[in-house]
């Protein structure tokens, strides 16, 4: 397939392909981070993760409309406001859900799967009743569209770069919050030994609520960012949920580093294979590889040592 191309042309194609892989990696990390926090730190299987993302996307849609109508001068920068609002909306809904539903199920982790799946159906229907069954188009500011020409032949999508930067920022913030701040120490303590954490005076219920809220909030930001690359409709969340679980489970449920490593492995494998094979075949091979590795290492790539 490379006949008749000069070396420089091939070089630029491979450079662009490298960026494609990195962008896919960022998308995966952004998708999975919220779920990894909830699943890894709390053991709750949140099937409504995709819907929390789409809530963020709809917040962005509403935002773009309002700003476009009432404050057009703000339009180039509205995306940042929209992401902040998406975080607040999804995060507070997450906290509400934790308080009204999830906290009764901590002793029955498998039931959280059923409960949150039901929640996802309810949310889908609410989106449908509110915004209509059709997909909505989110208008983006011009500077986010188009591509950046690095050289004459290498072009990189700007929205991809934006997602990359966003993912790095959010990962850094999450790392700081969980591993450098006092609150994060509480979260990790509760995860390692709930009873003991309670005994030394940590308000475990409060920690749970905020952790769940944080995970959902990050999902909201991810959904907001994905309006640049994907669709926004009542059931769009379903498009992401399989990949998200794949990344989190493959990485080792309780390790955030594992999530990042797994996102990197899967995205690179998939984008390289997509280039050399067909799209469906790439997906099949990726899934087979993941299944194979999980059979050898059921706990995922990275394991956190926890005393049980």
């Amino acid at each position, binding site marked *: *397939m490379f006949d008749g*191309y000069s070396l420089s042309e091939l070089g630029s*194609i491979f450079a*662009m*392909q490298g*960026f*494609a892989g990195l*962008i*896919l990696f960022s*998308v995966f990390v952004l998708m999975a981070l919220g779920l990894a926090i909830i699943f890894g730190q709390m053991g709750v299987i949140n099937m409504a993760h995709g819907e929390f993302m789409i809530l963020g996307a709809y917040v962005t849609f509403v935002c773009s409309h309002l700003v476009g109508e009432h404050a057009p001068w703000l339009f180039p920068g509205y995306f940042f406001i929209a992401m902040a609002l998406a975080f607040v909306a999804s995060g507070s809904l997450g906290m509400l859900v934790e308080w009204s539903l999830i906290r009764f199920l901590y002793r029955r982790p498998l039931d959280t799967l059923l409960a949150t799946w039901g929640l996802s159906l309810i949310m889908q*229907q609410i989106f*449908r009743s509110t915004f*209509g*069954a*059709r*997909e*909505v*188009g*989110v*208008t983006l500011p011009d500077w986010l*569209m*188009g*591509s950046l*020409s690095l050289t004459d032949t290498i*072009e990189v*999508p*700007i*929205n*991809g770069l934006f997602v990359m930067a966003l993912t790095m920022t959010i990962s850094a913030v999450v790392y700081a919050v969980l591993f450098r701040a006092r609150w994060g120490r509480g979260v990790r303590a509760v995860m390692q030994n709930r009873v003991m954490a309670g005994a030394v005076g940590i308000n475990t219920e409060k920690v749970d609520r905020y952790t769940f809220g944080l995970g959902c909030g990050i999902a909201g930001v991810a959904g907001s960012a*994905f309006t*640049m*690359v*994907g*669709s*926004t*409709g*009542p*059931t*769009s969340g*379903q*498009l*992401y949920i399989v990949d998200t679980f794949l990344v989190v489970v493959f990485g080792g449920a309780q390790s955030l580093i594992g999530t990042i490593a797994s996102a990197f492995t899967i995205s690179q494998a*998939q*984008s*390289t294979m*997509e*280039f050399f094979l*067909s*799209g*469906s075949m*790439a*997906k099949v091979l990726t899934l087979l590889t993941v299944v194979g590795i999980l059979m050898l290492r059921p706990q995922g790539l990275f394991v956190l040592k926890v005393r049980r």
Partner: protein
Amino acid sequence: MSSDDIRKDSHDALRRKLLLGMAALPAAAMMPRLAFAQAPATAAINTTGLAVTDSTVKVGILHSVTGTMSISETGSVEAEKLAIQQINEMGGVLGRKIEFIQEDGASDWPTFAEKSRKLLVNDKVAAVFGCWTSASRKAVLPVFEQYNGMLYYPTFYEGLEQSKNVIYTGQEATQQILAGLDWVFKEKGAKSFYLIGSDYIWPRTSNKIARKHIEKNGFKVAGEEYFPLGHTQFNSVINKIKLTKPDVIYAIVVGGSNVAFYKQLKAAGIDLKKQTLMTISVTEDEMLGIGGENIAGAYACMKYFQSLDNPNNKAFVEAFKKMWGADSVIGDVTQAAYLGPWLWKLTVEKAGSFDIDKVAAASPGIEFKGAPEGYVRIHENHHLWSKTRIGLAKADGQFDVIHETAELMEPDPFPKGYQ
């Protein structure tokens, strides 16, 4: 109350009925003749026990209004309701007002089969307007054949099917593909094509036909790619397209993937004003989600566009917007769904009967001059003769119709040499 009283009461009642009946006899004798002038007697036009009364006839609407397919099927439901309302305003079918029973297929194929059984067996509807995906049609087909129902199916689809119990008001694959390809061969001088689609039967069959037609004309298929439904990352294939530099990208991507595909194409710096892209899967409905600015410059090959300039279509668009809101858009399938109730009305009136067998037999040759897309006619094979048109996507979410075939295209669900 004693048993005597009951007997007396019932006796009285019987006598009253008899008296009334006798009094009504002269009127009753005149009735059939009067009624025939307006509406024929129910017994004569409904010999198989369908839900037809002297003043009403029941039909079914079976689409997904919940679940992932409701994105696409909502427009069809709206169009069918509009057509039924308009037909009723004109006096109904054979003097009977149409009443519809709407069922939700919920984007789930077994549910479609179950609901169609309910419509045919319990409700005994005279016709069903419904289904969207081929999967749902395949699921209900045995039910319609077993209980002898009549289905009006609106979506453009892959062909390879024909049934006495189905009228296909959308295009089968050759009607949508061949004329469009001929146009790009001629107008764009296209010699190489990159075929890309979602991974299921319709895009695969359509691309197979497209590939045959391209190669038959001596041109080249530079690549052919399929992605799972719901795939959202197209950067790798876009690089591949950049590498192969095809004259035309031929895209049959559907659903949410569509939005991702066009947004990423634009973000990757592929300018559709310079790179020819032809699609058979993007209508005005999909443009809403994609955003006109992301797809402006692409060519879509359809039989209907909302912007078609003819009196029928102007009236249709106006009526549709009046009923469903000024913001509503009308895509190819929505218009095809609108044809369903009208074709059924014309067929029933030609057959002079609601009986399914008579309607099926009377269908070939039915002409509908009031169609928004222009004149259509039902072929022997229960598909429609219709024109193929090419639209140029604009940033405002509409298409400029830049080409239409001079003649009606013959439907050919089993194309020889393309399988």
